[in-house]
């Protein structure tokens, strides 16, 4: 388990951020000097609808402890409807992950606009705290007792 020198658990968080809203929101958080934990690794995607459910499974398999998808608010999608499709897909995927026994706090979808730097920072802080309390993700990597 990755630890800091003082024995604190450092989770690995993958954040898929939509180029048009949330990625700019993260930028705004930075330029407004609002901090969020360095455990969050941002992956820029053109739209939350670009996030293939396999990306999330892959992130977990590669050792992510939590995955968050950030997109434009419903109604604000740069491509009109990408986030609506993402919303249905992610709801079903999260439900399936919950069903196979992965803690449901490890996945989240949050709508963050380009003007919501403060929300981005607050969301990330809160999500990292949540994952820290859940601890390391071992389940998905071990789904078939292959390791």
């Amino acid at each position, binding site marked *: 388990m990755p630890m800091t020198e003082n024995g604190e658990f450092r989770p690995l968080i993958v954040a898929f951020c939509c180029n048009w809203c949330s990625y700019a929101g993260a930028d705004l958080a930075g330029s407004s000097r609002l901090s969020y934990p360095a455990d969050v690794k941002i992956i820029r995607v053109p739209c939350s609808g670009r996030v293939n*459910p*396999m990306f999330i*499974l*892959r992130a977990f*398999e590669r050792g992510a402890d939590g995955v968050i998808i950030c997109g434009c608010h*419903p*109604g604000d999608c740069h491509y009109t*409807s990408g986030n*609506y*499709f993402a*919303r*249905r*897909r*992610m*709801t*079903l*995927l*999260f*439900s*399936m992950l*919950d*069903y*196979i*026994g*992965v*803690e*449901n*706090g490890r*996945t*989240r*979808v949050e709508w963050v606009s380009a003007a919501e730097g403060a929300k981005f920072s607050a969301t990330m802080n809160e999500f990292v705290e949540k994952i820290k309390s859940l601890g390391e993700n071992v*389940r*998905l*990597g*071990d*789904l*078939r*007792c*292959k*390791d």
Partner: protein
Amino acid sequence: MQGLIDRLSALLSDGTVARVLGWKKGDMPYNPEPHMFETAESLKDFVYDGFCGANLSKMMIEASKLEGKTAVCLKPCDSYSFNQLIREHRVDRENAYIIGVGCRGKLDIDKARANGIKGIEEVSGTELDGPDSVSFKTIYGDKEMSYSDLLLGRCHVCKGKEHMIYDELWGESKDTADSERFDEVKALEAMSPAERFEFFKKELSKCIRCNACRNVCPACSCRKCAFDNNNFDSQQKANVDSFEEKMFHIIRAFHVAGRCTDCGECSRVCPEGIPLHLFNRKFIKDIDELYGEFQAGKDPEAQSPLTDYTFEDCEPGIVAERSNG
């Protein structure tokens, strides 16, 4: 059964159809196999009994590309899969002559084996109009088991005796449903996450990646499959990739979500007996609860819930709310 064979040979002889897609006697009395009959004479090997569980609709993808019409025998639940394939433009309705064959539930030979019936030489009483009990002639003597105790798991949640699509019907169907469709899923949902994980870990660890579930699934009919490795010539072979190893069944269930008609073929063909339908049925249950009742294959015009949306859809956070009560 003779009536059906006579009708099929008449269709072949008068040129209505060029071939018949049905079941042929297998090497054992309980394993008939799908077969394409080209001549009226070859129909002497045609069989339709309680062990003809195979869903022939997927084979119509290739068959409907051939010259002339193909007669295909579809049970009521298979007709949903056929309809779904029409929806996806994978089969040509014009090239199919659908005989809606009756069904009173299909049998699972493993149920007989579990009941101590082994060394089976002959089976009788599995015909559509047969008796309520099935007789086995085994090397250890004669055994008997009731028809309903032998039914495949999927037949206990039968979708009904109506054919969704057909050109003509043959035989009486019977609705064999005697339990709730989502009972198994609900029982799992009631467990704690740790128990659920142990359950699925135990089941999925049995998987040998034979791809039988993928190859039999009517919804898994993409020309190019995400699981095929194009770097090698052995396209159907399992990839040696730990991601695929672990996530195969989740990915496959997601790829067919909203298109799966719950025909139960995946669980029937699994050589390891993994209850794969539990994944698909969970998606169906969620779709029904969150986006309104939807049965894939019921209406060939209906929009799949995953290619559709409404402004009022629930947020993904609902998963945690529902699960944590």
